[in-house]
């Protein structure tokens, strides 16, 4: 049984499976690290288009930073989680745990 009524309180930007996986992966990396777009795509097993859409939403929320640069002549895009994104993910996991605890307490 899930606490369906409380779900809307969760951060809607993160509470979509694809974006949750993106944020969870970026959060596992070190705070000073950035990952190249193709490496992130391979890690998540997403298509470039799908990942791009989700990253745009996360960037709009201020949760990820996208840096476009060049490696030699090749354009490279790096992605990292911002401090705001880290805090949002932390709050999100706390809220999920609280939901789980309350669901367990009422059953």
């Amino acid at each position, binding site marked *: 049984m*899930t*606490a*369906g009524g409380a*779900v*809307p309180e969760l951060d*809607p930007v993160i*509470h*979509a*499976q*694809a974006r*949750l*996986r993106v944020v*969870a*992966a970026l*959060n*596992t*990396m*070190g*705070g*000073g*690290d*950035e*990952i*190249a777009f*193709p*490496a*992130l795509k391979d*890690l*998540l097993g997403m298509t470039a288009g799908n990942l791009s859409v989700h990253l745009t939403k996360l960037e709009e929320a201020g949760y990820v930073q996208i840096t476009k640069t060049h490696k030699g002549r090749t354009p490279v895009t*790096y992605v*990292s989680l911002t401090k705001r994104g880290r805090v949002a993910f932390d709050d999100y*996991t706390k809220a*999920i*745990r609280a*939901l*789980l605890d309350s*669901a367990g307490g009422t059953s």
Partner: protein
Amino acid sequence: MVDDGERAPSPEETLRLIEEQRAATVRRFRGDPLFLYVPWGVAWLLGFTCFFLHYGLDGKPYAPISQTQALAVLMISMVIAGSLAAYEITRMNMGVRGESPARGAMYGYTWFAGMIVMSIIAIRVSPMLPEAEAGLLWSGVSMLVVGVMYMAGGAIFLYWPMFFAGVGVIAVNGLGVLLGPGWHALLTAVLLGVGQIVVGLWWRRRQCR
């Protein structure tokens, strides 16, 4: 409310998803123990078994293997193990920039510097020692570098299993040097060689779960 037409996952599903993604990311960035640890175990097992057969426990060789042949087996195995580790470390850092690759590069250079200076010391001092003691100097100092680097690696990457692997190497190495060349070779081959292979395979199995 979840957009993008995705079904809202339950709290249990969400936590599982987070944990699965975290584990997959750790696997990707911490490397495959099959490349990072197991080859070193194989190198020590092969090389130090040759040394053990050369020295014997009571000073009599158990097999007609010269010290040069034993050293050649150890060095060739270690070069192969080092190449596999370097390949895996390069793969781990591919597509990543920032603090972790910088830390990894500095750690790699420290290994290199430690091994080079260890060789210089052994080359300079070993001609002054009897053959068995010269071999013990090479083995003991090289395993000291390995143990210290594992412990330092554990501290740098905040990874306790690596730190304790270093503690094991230091302890076995210290005891072996005290007991003499034959025992040092035997203990290193069995406890560190086989131990590293077993621990490496266990880490891999745990990572793949």
